[in-house]
């Protein structure tokens, strides 16, 4: 079963999200330990992205709590949660449309630049030093994914696969301890998915991350996740390691045999 690591990174207890009469997420209980790669799967509309949204503060849960590293983060605003160390990507890529590749990443460095509006506008020395550092850091990140030669291109002009990678890099620029990836492999062919899996493992090791990901690509999920939770209509129907999930009759039923 699961290896409860020495340090618990993220946990939720009885997390429930209701929209009017619809219960999108129902009594969701989650535990993710440090450096784990955990998956969240389930048929479309199962409530997976909603769960992400609640965890990252975009919605206030109807019931329940979210804890990050022993701290109750329920109801905190998204930017505060990001500051605490949780970063995310989006199901429909949400790059900043009018900005270049580099600028997209630089935006995520905003927290570390920490200059007052005043000193930033006047380009005071303190600000300039931090801005230069942020640029260097961002270019380094871009180099690691092979996007640095496109730094000044418009972000949305990149091919789809590269846009996804850019979104991940952008999230990394917030210097997170935990990364939430929402369908990172969407639209990728088998070769790209393989590379993505490698990439996820690599950044987990290199940046000492804990990763929680939503995915439909079974190849990716089974290949890279150490554990996973299965949602169907907001309810957790199974939880365990890849091989036990694959054999779980409830899971098979929920997917109607789709592999």
């Amino acid at each position, binding site marked *: 079963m699961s290896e409860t690591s020495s340090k618990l990174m993220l946990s939720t207890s009885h997390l429930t999200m209701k929209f009017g009469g619809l219960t999108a997420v129902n009594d969701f209980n989650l535990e993710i330990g440090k450096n784990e790669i955990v998956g969240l799967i389930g048929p479309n509309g199962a409530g997976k992205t909603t769960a992400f949204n609640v965890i*990252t503060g*975009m919605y206030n849960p109807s019931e329940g709590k979210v804890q990050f590293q022993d701290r109750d983060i329920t109801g905190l*605003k*998204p*930017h505060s949660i*990001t*500051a605490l160390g949780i*970063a*995310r990507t*989006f199901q429909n890529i*949400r*790059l*900043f*449309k*009018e*900005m*270049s590749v580099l*600028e997209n990443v*630089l*935006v*995520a*460095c*905003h*927290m570390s*630049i920490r*200059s007052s*509006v005043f000193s*930033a*506008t*006047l*380009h005071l020395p303190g*600000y300039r030093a931090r*801005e230069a550092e*942020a640029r260097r850091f961002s270019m380094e990140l871009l180099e690691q994914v092979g996007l640095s*030669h496109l730094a*000044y291109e418009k972000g949305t002009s990149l091919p789809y696969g590269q846009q996804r990678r850019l979104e991940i890099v*952008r*999230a990394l*620029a*917030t210097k997170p301890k935990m990364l939430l990836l929402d369908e990172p492999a969407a639209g990728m062919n088998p070769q790209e998915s393989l590379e993505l899996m490698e990439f996820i493992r690599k950044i987990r090791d290199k940046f000492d991350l804990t990763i929680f990901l939503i995915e439909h690509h079974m190849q990716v999920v089974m290949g890279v996740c150490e554990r996973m939770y299965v949602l169907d209509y907001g309810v957790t129907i199974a939880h365990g390691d890849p091989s036990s999930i694959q054999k779980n009759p409830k899971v098979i039923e929920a997917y109607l045999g789709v592999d």
Partner: protein
Amino acid sequence: MKQSTELKKALPKRKLYTIAALAAFVVFAFLANLFFDAFTLRVFNLCAIYIVLALSLNLLNGFTGLFSLGHAGFMAVGAYVSALLTMSTQLKDMNYFLEPIVPWLHHLTMPFLPAIIIAGLVSGFVGFLIGAPVLRLRDDYLAIATLGFGEIIRVLITNAQGITNGAQGLKGLPRYSTTFSVWVAAGLVTLFMVLLMRSSFGRALKAVRDDELAAEAMGINVFKVKVTSFTMSSFLVGIGGALLGHMITTIDPKMFTFMLTFNILLIVVLGGIGSISGSVISAIAVTILMEVLRFLDEPMNLIFFKTDGLPGLRMVVFSLLLMIIIIYRQRGLMGSKEFSWDMLTGLFVKRGRKGGDHV
């Protein structure tokens, strides 16, 4: 990497062109001040004031993506504060014949520079007070709410007889808006905008505009950014309003209607929402055009028939212009790009890559 070294070589040449152009303009302004007749000079200086107003609206609408329609209200605040702080006691006595001015304003008089700065600060503060509750609203609701506040401000001014002299307005404001003061103001505001948009805060503004949710997820306190932007914009608008007041030397509540906001909106849309140079060029072009087209409202002697003046034709032309631009070329003149010398040479050389100063 190759790109950045190419950039480095090109940069000094561009800077040279820019400095040369600015110097040429300063000389031009100086000569204009000497040789233009009063009317032309006024139009020329009005351009500067509209640059300030357009840039302040663009900061909000174009760069932060907040559609605010209350501009005229903040202009009024700025104009009135500056007027009340610069008018002499005798001037005030002459104006306030229906109801005497409140005692604490009666003897308060100060020179232009502190007055206009205070005007901006008051306007910015009002912006802060209004912004905090209103900026939680969505696009269209925000537009209506700010429009509402603009009107509320106007109604308050009309009714606060003891403070603002109500509907009678204030006459005889000292003419502090000289060629020097307005163009220095325009220059400073432009410089401010350029510096701002090149900074990390400018990036945050654009991120909020492009995708609020993503910006928030990347650690940006979106609400704080919005309020800051709104306050800054209100500060600048207040200064613009003050400059306007001291040029026309008469202000009354009927000047600060939605029509005024509309004119500035037209300028910003024409120039390109999100382009600083676009706003500057457009402000100059539209101000001149507005004066030139004034003849449309006057009686015209066309060869075949005389018209007894077609009031409203000017506004017809402008509204039509706005609609045509927004329907067929939403991005306006410059879109969200900035002017660059490459653009100019690109016009003469065969159309290749259009460059823009990336920020």
